[in-house]
């Protein structure tokens, strides 16, 4: 029994580790693909060289990020079977087709046009190349749509029946896909991806402005990123609030853990700002709290009663401290991002967006904030779903393969070592690229050219006027 529990814990750790690592890359590439599409669109419509330079600057980084996203993603599509075979057997009929649609409508689209996007600029002409960029950007969205539909269904399962053998059988596909938490989660996650990307782009711009505040490329990317944050950060806080209310409706226990509410409150629950949730004792120690504020946020009434974890069986509790703290990390970073947005607004109004080192240092420091917030939010929602894989219906301990603890321990160790070595190197290369200032006549992800067709020197783009020779190097 004890050994079986260990194997489950190890399998969970392995899944959490590999999915968290993986999630970093798409949360960057969803936003970056759109940013690249905007840059190329601006270049095509205005003809200004600077947009093409920035496009090529970020395209090199995109190539690295996307590659790491692909290889870490292949792991995910097999890990349901290796470690969660019972889950696969029971839930496969519902989430399998959603993931199959993700592959068919998104992954192939992205992968199919990525080659053209990265290496094809002087082979296919401007319009077709822009189409390829758009296809990749749209592909990242479609992918988010399907995978979040599948993930949301595991949180708020609807539209299915359970067969005699315990298999989940879809009954109404629209209800499965558009399950109650899906729209909220989709909006919240896509905004998160936008913010993450904008923070990185802003930090890189700020980094180069600190060195040379006249660098045109740095100015344009910093301004665009800050503008994006200013628009999206407030919307994201609103979207987060809406998702919180949706969670309260469908997964109240998760909200109790997020709030650190072990006890029920009959007339107004306090908002616990900080504290240490003690799961064994069932209290949040050292709580710093604002009276009645939690009821105000969650029920929009000061004296509204709010149930606590004491109203449910302990066997239904998620690990409270993890959920409580990851939630605070996410929200705290959200408000810091909002502060950066307000700061940049102020700078823009004073016309000092490019000449205010304090702002630039702040933006550099906030560069990784999006990734941390995304992972923290992910931990909040996924750990908050415990002890279930399909909320309320299938327990995590009943989902796992017949695992041997040493086998899982060995694979987990291998994943940890390989991910840190490989993706550590990747992050280092990305930082190295980011450390180079954007400049006029930026090169693309070139190696000269990856493939050159014999006798095809007069490619369509070459024949067009207005492209300087160096632009052909992409």
């Amino acid at each position, binding site marked *: 029994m004890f050994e079986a529990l260990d194997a489950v814990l190890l399998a969970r750790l392995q899944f959490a580790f590999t999915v968290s690592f993986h999630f970093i890359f798409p949360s960057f590439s969803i936003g970056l693909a759109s940013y690249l599409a905007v840059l190329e669109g601006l270049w095509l419509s205005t003809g200004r060289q600077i947009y093409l330079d920035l496009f090529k600057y970020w395209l090199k980084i995109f190539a690295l990020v996307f590659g790491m996203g692909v290889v870490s993603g292949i792991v995910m*599509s097999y890990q349901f079977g290796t470690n969660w075979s019972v889950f696969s057997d029971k839930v496969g009929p519902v989430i399998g087709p959603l993931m*199959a649609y993700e592959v068919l409508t998104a992954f192939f689209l992205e992968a*199919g046009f990525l080659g053209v996007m990265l290496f094809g600029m002087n082979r296919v002409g401007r319009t077709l190349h822009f189409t390829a960029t758009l296809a990749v950007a749209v592909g990242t969205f479609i992918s988010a749509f399907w995978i979040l539909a599948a993930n949301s269904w595991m949180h708020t399962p609807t539209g299915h029946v359970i067969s005699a053998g315990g298999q989940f059988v879809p009954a109404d596909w629209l209800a499965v896909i558009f399950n109650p938490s899906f729209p909220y989660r989709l909006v919240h996650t896509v905004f998160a991806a936008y913010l993450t990307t904008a923070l990185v782009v802003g930090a890189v711009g700020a980094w180069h402005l600190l060195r040379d505040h006249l660098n045109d490329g740095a100015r344009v990317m910093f301004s665009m990123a800050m503008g994006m944050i200013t628009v999206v950060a407030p919307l994201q806080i609103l979207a987060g609030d809406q998702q919180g209310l949706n969670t309260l409706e469908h997964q109240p226990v998760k909200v109790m853990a997020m709030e650190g509410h072990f006890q029920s409150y009959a007339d107004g629950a306090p908002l616990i700002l900080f504290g240490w949730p003690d799961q064994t004792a069932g209290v949040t120690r050292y709580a710093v709290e604002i009276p009645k504020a939690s009821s105000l946020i969650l029920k929009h009434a000061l004296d509204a009663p709010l149930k606590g974890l004491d109203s449910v069986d302990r066997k239904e509790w998620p690990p409270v401290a993890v959920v409580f703290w990851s939630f605070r990390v996410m929200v705290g970073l959200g408000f810091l991002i909002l502060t950066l947005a307000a700061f940049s607004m102020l700078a823009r109004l004073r016309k000092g967006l490019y000449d205010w080192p304090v702002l630039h240092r702040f933006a550099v420091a906030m560069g990784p904030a999006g990734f941390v917030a995304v992972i923290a939010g992910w931990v909040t929602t996924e750990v908050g779903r415990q002890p279930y894989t399909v909320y309320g219906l299938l327990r995590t301990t009943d989902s796992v393969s017949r695992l041997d603890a040493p086998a899982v321990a060995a694979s987990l160790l291998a994943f940890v070592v390989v991910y840190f070595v490989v993706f550590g190197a990747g992050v280092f290369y990305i930082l190295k690229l980011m450390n180079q200032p954007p400049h006029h006549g930026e090169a693309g992800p070139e190696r000269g050219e990856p493939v050159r067709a014999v006798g095809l020197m007069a490619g369509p783009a070459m024949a067009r006027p207005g492209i300087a020779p160096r632009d052909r190097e992409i």
Partner: protein
Amino acid sequence: MPFTVDLPTVFAFVIAFAIFAYVVMDGFDLGIGILFPALPAGRERDSAMNSIAPVWDGNETWLVLGGGGLLAAFPLAYGMILSALYAPIIAMLLALIFRGVAFEFRWRDPGHRAVWDVAFNVGSVVAAFAQGVTLGALLQGIAVQDRGYAGGWFDWLTPFSLLVGASLVCGYALLGATWLIMKSEGPLQARCYRLAFPLGIGAILAMAAVSAWTPFLREAYWLRWFAWPQVLFTAQVPLLVAIVSVAFLVGLHRRHHYTPFLMALALFTLGLAGLGISLYPYVVPPAVSIWDAAAPDVSLRFMLPGVLVMVPVILAYTGYSYWVFRGKTGHEGYH
């Protein structure tokens, strides 16, 4: 409705097609990784790498479709096979990570290019070998009980699975060499002509060995291949293998650019057809058929239009992408 379709059979063909597409497309780019040590560092390696850089990502997506499709259409088989073959599957995934990142990393870090070249090579060899072992272990059968895997953690490790693993490494290397014959010129092409001959002989012998061994694994396979009258049908496979092998050797001897690759692909196609003949209708031999493992019809019916519409579309734009990067890989632009 008078006309009904057996959806599990349809999806068995869909999954088989995904595996076929994967082997056809990722086979040659894994093969180039396997051959990497045989190519001198510098121009030849760079050209070889560049010939697959724009397409490898799409190629590997077929592997995701194979995995995702199996989960969607045959969830029971997906869980059984992957947990039974835990070690080779994890090894394959880790190996694919090493080779996948090497494409970009070797350009970004010229100082450590040699290191990433080794990662590309070892990753490709391990991934190919693990895929072969997986195939071999599946063919020899998986012990199941109560909708779960019931064997030990090293059941997959047998002489037969190791033979299939080695065969696949050799076969992919052949695809890689013949792909480069098609895509390159000069010294790289000459080198690949030299490599393709022993690799071709090796692959044909390996195929013969696996084929000869398979009927002895299970009586069902023996009957499938040799029972009268279906032997009239199954005998066409080895016959075609012999014809294709001769065509391959002739094409190689006459220094054709395309024939060797196309014939190597034909060999793989016949190998997969043979695999299908042995397995059908079992997805997890010896006990679980495609009907036992299939998802409910409602799941399969939901996916059917997606498959019927999207697979041709995917093939069309994949074809377009190959067309954009057609022709020989040159070495201009590397100075």
